[in-house]
């Protein structure tokens, strides 16, 4: 144990460790990925006699070409190119859109760049990652072939301009499938959010109604346009009928050739989604088991000589397991009936950890608010962090600080115990990754863990408040 005057953290604690940025204590925190311009490349102030930069210029930054994570609309391609080429990202975006509308090339180029350029901070490009997954490649090919088929049919129907769209659009479509399937978790979260804003695709339960309305409206407009086209075309001539028949033949041909394949891919997709749901459930389960059973077993091992304590622990664990298995109350969470506000949850953590681990918890709470599902997850993760500190740090006491603000609730657990090297935590140590980090991320929060061997650990958790309570 280090005395109170120990210097923790060391000056580089924020950047060492797990590579997480120091949480927002210092104002003017620069971007975690170093995307902020170094002072040398700062844009010159306009009013100091230096020539003004042309409207389309932007500061040019050194470093490899990476897709931006800070300045992005979709893939961050324009943002990334902008800082490499010294051209304003907005100008690049306009260029892409113009090229996309006129002929589709812009779209294809953009998607290919998205695939080929690694994201800022990512080790490899999406393309490289995804090419090893045959299933995904097949899916992209299938999707591209559907687009090709559709466009060829349209061309056969006499829409000549679609012929030029075939390649760029099908490349873009196939590429987007690869992006979607190959994106890592961070980027996927961003894409999910992006999709959520598009009313046609969003199928999240909260938006179903609106998206249905939008879809029906769009369908109705298309049908109306088609019908009016037929009506204004006057009596169908022989050639028109011939074209329609030909188009239908093409469609049937595609269906015969590719139909079964498309069908199988669609089925595989459904299977895969079920699989993913199951994996997530398993992760939930693992977190819950870790919180209760594994922690208790560890306590029992430590108290092996003390028969009464062992019995007490086993009893408590048995009760908790029963509640979980038969009443569906997962361990480590805070239940509506018992605990309704953040302050009450903090009191529960304080009481339970002190009772189970005989380590005093200095809890300080600022403000209070009712618990929501997200905040319950925050408190569960906070309890886990406190238990970890009490059980493993060897520190004589643990500090727990919770602040309720209008936008978010933050929770800090700090000990001056033995600490550890966050970079060296092995995969099987599920506590931190499952119970704390994954739990926070599932609910839209964040977890930053700073620790220095020999000097202590601090876990910082922040959960945004979804709906600020009315005053």
């Amino acid at each position, binding site marked *: 144990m280090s005395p109170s005057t120990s210097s923790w953290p060391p000056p580089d604690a924020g950047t060492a460790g797990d590579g997480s940025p120091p949480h927002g204590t210092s104002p003017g925190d620069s971007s975690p990925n170093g995307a902020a311009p170094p002072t040398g490349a700062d844009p010159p102030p306009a009013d100091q006699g230096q020539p003004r930069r042309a409207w389309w210029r932007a500061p040019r930054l050194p470093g490899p070409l990476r897709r931006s994570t800070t300045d992005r609309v979709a893939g961050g391609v324009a943002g990334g190119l902008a800082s490499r080429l010294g051209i304003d990202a907005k100008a690049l975006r306009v260029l892409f859109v113009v090229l996309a509308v006129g002929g589709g090339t812009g779209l294809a180029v953009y998607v290919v760049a998205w695939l080929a350029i690694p994201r800022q901070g990512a080790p490899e490009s999406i393309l490289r990652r995804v090419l090893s997954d045959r299933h995904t490649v097949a899916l992209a090919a299938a999707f591209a072939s559907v687009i090709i088929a559709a466009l060829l049919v349209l061309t056969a129907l006499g829409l000549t301009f679609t012929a030029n769209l075939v390649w760029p659009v099908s490349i873009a479509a196939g590429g987007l499938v690869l992006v979607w399937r190959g994106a890592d978790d961070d980027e996927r979260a961003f894409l999910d959010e992006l999709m959520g804003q598009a009313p046609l695709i969003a199928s999240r339960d909260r938006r179903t109604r609106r998206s249905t309305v939008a879809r029906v409206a769009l369908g109705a407009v298309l049908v109306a346009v088609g019908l009016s086209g037929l009506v204004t075309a006057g009596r169908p001539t022989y050639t028109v009928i011939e074209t329609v028949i030909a188009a239908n033949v093409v469609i049937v041909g595609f269906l015969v050739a590719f139909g079964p394949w498309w069908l199988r891919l669609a089925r595989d997709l459904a299977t895969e989604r079920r699989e993913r749901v199951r994996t997530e459930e398993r992760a939930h389960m693992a977190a819950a088991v870790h919180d209760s059973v594994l922690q208790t077993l560890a306590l029992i091992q430590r108290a092996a000589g003390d028969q009464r304590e062992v019995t007490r622990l086993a009893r408590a664990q048995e009760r908790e397991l029963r509640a979980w298995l038969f009443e569906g109350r997962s361990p480590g969470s805070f239940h509506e009936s018992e605990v309704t506000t953040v302050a009450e949850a903090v009191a529960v953590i304080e009481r339970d950890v002190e009772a189970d681990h005989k380590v005093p918890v200095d809890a300080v709470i600022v403000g209070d608010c009712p618990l929501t599902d997200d905040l319950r997850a925050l408190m569960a993760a906070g309890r886990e962090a406190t238990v970890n500190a009490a059980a493993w740090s060897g520190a004589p006491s643990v500090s727990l600080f919770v602040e309720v603000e209008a936008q978010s609730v933050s929770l800090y657990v*700090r000990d001056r115990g033995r600490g550890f090297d966050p970079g060296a935590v092995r995969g099987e140590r599920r506590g931190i990754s499952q119970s704390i980090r994954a739990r926070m991320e599932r609910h839209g929060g964040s977890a930053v863990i700073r620790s220095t061997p020999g000097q202590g650990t601090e876990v910082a958790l922040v959960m945004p408040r979804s709906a600020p309570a009315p005053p």
Partner: protein
Amino acid sequence: MTGVGAARPPGASVRVFLVDDHHLVLSGVRAELGPEVEVVGDADEVGAAIELIAERLPDVVLVDVHMPDGGGQAVIEAVGASHPEVRFLALSVSDAAEDVIAIIRAGARGYVTKTISGPELTQAVLRVADGDAVFSPRLAGFVLDAFAADPGMGGGATPSFDPELDQLTAREREVLRLIARGYAYKEVARELSISIKTVETHVSAVLRKLQLSSRHQLTRWATERRLL
């Protein structure tokens, strides 16, 4: 534990007086205090304490919040009127915000809980002797709560008579947050890349606001806290 005493002439130990109605606490604190501190006397009730302090004129009085006959607050008010140079550090097991805020407003330069370790208590005493303020994590939390930027809880805008005194600056808030998270002054300084002296300045400024602010919320907040 070396940097703190630098402002005092070397060799001069800080003279401390203890006031607590529990004899166990008196002897415990006496045993825990480091050699930099000399205990010049103690008292177990308010009247005796006021007399003895006036007689021995210690640098710092460690005073219990809860005692019969008015508690620490009565001692501070009586001594403070006649001997303003004597400084007070409140020591308590009490967690009630109302009591803590009241004793600070009576003139104590800090508040620590009795669970504090010996070296930490010694350091706190030295700090108070130097005229600085001592905030425990809990007191920092109370202050953050009482000076909350969003006056939503009480409802309605309470007129602020003196914005200088009635609000904390962003930096003061940051310092208090770190203290509430369990950081020692030295660690706060390192985290914010400022000197320990600057941290002490911020904390003293907060103490001044806490003592002088006429903010209505402060008292009301403390009372509400008790009702919860």
